């Protein structure tokens, strides 16, 4: 009788061990797949965004200035942002939702800096324009970086 009980317990424990091992293996496999996907995505992110975020956008932003109370020399930044949008087309097929919001953010900045060039700003309002451009660029950088780290 005792032997039967012990044998049954042993079988039950074995079955439980097998189930737990199978679940652990499945979870580990899913984790690996996720990590591989993140690594692959990281490669594309770096390839597409690094040069723009680190060099091209900051350099183009430097040209912005006011002359005769109008924002001028904004076409550099506009052209760089358009080029970024073009180079981001990969995401149209990899992550459509990300791409659409990215497109919206990029074109919002482009339209703003160019439209600012069509009107005059008094001295006291010019600082506000620079602040708004800074705010929009920060929003763009944050969106790209948050999506890269998976915080989106």
């Amino acid at each position, binding site marked *: 009788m005792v032997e039967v009980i012990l044998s049954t317990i042993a079988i039950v424990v074995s079955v439980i061990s097998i189930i737990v091992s199978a679940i652990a293996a499945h979870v580990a496999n899913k984790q690996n797949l996720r990590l591989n996907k993140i690594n692959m995505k990281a490669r594309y992110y770096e390839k597409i965004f690094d040069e723009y975020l680190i060099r091209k956008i900051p350099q183009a932003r430097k040209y912005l200035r006011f002359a005769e109370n109008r924002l001028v020399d904004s076409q550099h930044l*506009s*052209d760089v942002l*358009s080029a970024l949008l073009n180079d981001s087309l990969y995401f149209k097929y990899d992550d459509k939702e990300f791409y659409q919001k990215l497109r919206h953010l990029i074109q919002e900045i482009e*339209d703003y800096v160019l439209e600012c*060039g069509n009107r005059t700003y008094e001295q006291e309002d010019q600082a506000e324009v620079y602040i708004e451009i800074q705010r929009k660029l920060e929003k763009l950088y944050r969106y790209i970086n948050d999506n890269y780290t998976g915080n989106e």
Partner: protein
Amino acid sequence: MNKVNLVFDKTLSNLAGYDYGRKIYDEQVRGQIDLYQDFTIEFPEQIRGVASSFVQGFFANIVETIGLLATEERTNIISGNSRVQNNILKKLQ
């Protein structure tokens, strides 16, 4: 000649906005050129910057009619500003 000279308010230096691009196309280009031949669009020298939103709105009907490839092949852009001339078609998507 299969060409349109665009006209803008003298106060404008830059062009932006999808809807505005479509409006300019509808008012100044639609029906004025043969899209099935090479055609020329001239931007006045006052225009120094053109946003991708404007380009996409302006060319929307052309691309719908003849396709992106034919649009790129047949469109000739003239501008007194070389940056505008060289970059407009790059802003098509």
